[in-house]
């Protein structure tokens, strides 16, 4: 199957190329970037040095492909989506442009009206753990954001068993520097960012809308930048309407994820990493989820950890692509991570 990557010069684009160039069923036919036209993909992605002769072409020169991965900044894919869908292939959008079902949320969270709200109804959110069957037939897959993915997967089993009260959920998220992209501005420079524990979005983070859409909960999200390149840890404080024992939570999480290839339940009484830890997930497509009960505060702390560029973006996109294309769901995604790292 031939695939194209639109917006291939960013960190997510580079991660897509890393995965797709070694995917057993894929040939990467085109990669676009208006900034790097004519240059090797190894220029912005030196880890891909000497593994491919691909060079970037401009967005305008994109040709139809069996599948097109779109990794452009938010706001760009929404304008071109009718044209991309008309070409007849599968489109996997890694931007936020088709994640929200309600078009009225785009002005609020992304400061733009959606130019093609009719397209939103065609999109299936790229969460195999929730929408696996629908993903197998959708020609437009909208991959959720990294913090949203970690939060939704952490909370989904709790929502499923109906034990949360109506106070909503507080999500405290920490993320590595790659989450802000290749062009993160002066605040992302090493001299400024190194060593910070920066509350970069104490309120108002855009992923709030995705988490609320998928959980049905009122979400209070605060986001912090921490000393890491990759990784998201979402610590979700959920409040319960009755006493809950940990065994019940084990059953709920096991029921939701017991057969999932990329979600692991981590809540152990011994060992080096007893709860989900993003550090050991770097480069993998795993999302580790865990939980702890707090009877004193009638609270459950649900945890979700992942690599923001993998299960939080490119890896999850390839997992969705595998489902849609009929390939083994884990194809190209078998890296187990490094330890120590």
């Amino acid at each position, binding site marked *: 199957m031939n695939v194209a990557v639109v917006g291939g010069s960013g960190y997510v684009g580079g991660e897509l190329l890393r995965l797709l160039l070694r995917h057993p069923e894929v040939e990467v036919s085109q990669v676009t970037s208006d900034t790097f036209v004519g240059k090797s993909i190894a220029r912005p992605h030196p880890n891909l040095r000497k593994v491919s002769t691909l060079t970037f072409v401009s967005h305008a020169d994109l040709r139809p492909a069996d599948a097109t991965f779109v990794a452009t900044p938010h706001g760009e894919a929404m304008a071109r989506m009718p044209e991309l869908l008309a070409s007849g292939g599968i489109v996997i959008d890694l931007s936020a442009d088709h994640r929200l079902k309600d078009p009225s949320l785009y002005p609020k969270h992304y400061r733009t009206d959606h130019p093609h709200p009719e397209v939103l109804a065609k999109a299936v959110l790229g969460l195999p753990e929730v929408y696996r069957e629908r993903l197998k037939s959708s020609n437009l897959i909208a991959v959720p954001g990294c913090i949203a993915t970690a939060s939704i997967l952490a909370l989904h089993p709790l929502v499923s068993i109906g034990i949360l009260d109506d106070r909503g959920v507080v999500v405290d998220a920490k993320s590595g520097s790659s989450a802000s992209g290749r062009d993160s501005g002066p605040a992302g420079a090493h001299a400024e960012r190194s060593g910070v524990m920066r509350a970069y979005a104490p309120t108002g983070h855009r992923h709030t809308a995705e988490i609320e859409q998928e959980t049905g909960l009122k979400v209070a999200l605060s986001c912090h930048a921490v000393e890491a390149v990759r990784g998201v840890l979402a610590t979700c404080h959920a409040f319960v309407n009755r006493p809950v024992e940990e065994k019940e939570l084990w*059953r709920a999480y096991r029921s939701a994820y017991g057969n999932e290839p990329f979600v692991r339940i981590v809540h152990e009484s011994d060992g080096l990493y007893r709860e989900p830890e993003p550090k050991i997930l770097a480069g993998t497509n795993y999302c580790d989820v865990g939980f702890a009960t707090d009877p004193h505060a009638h609270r459950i702390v649900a945890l979700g950890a992942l690599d923001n560029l993998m299960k939080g973006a490119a890896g999850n996109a390839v997992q969705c692509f595998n489902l849609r294309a009929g390939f083994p769901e884990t194809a190209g995604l078998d890296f187990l991570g490094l330890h120590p790292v």
Partner: protein
Amino acid sequence: MTQCPECDAAVENPTMIPGEVFPCPDCGTELEVTGKNPFTVELAPQEAEDWGE
């Protein structure tokens, strides 16, 4: 087949004999085999540990 006392995971290890210790495959808790037919387990005695912080 029996359940882990900590997390309710189904556990069975027909090759083990009473007194042997193995980790629960889900929560990692160390379990001690207390019976073979039927297979039964209990939480294994834990040594106190300072995990830091």
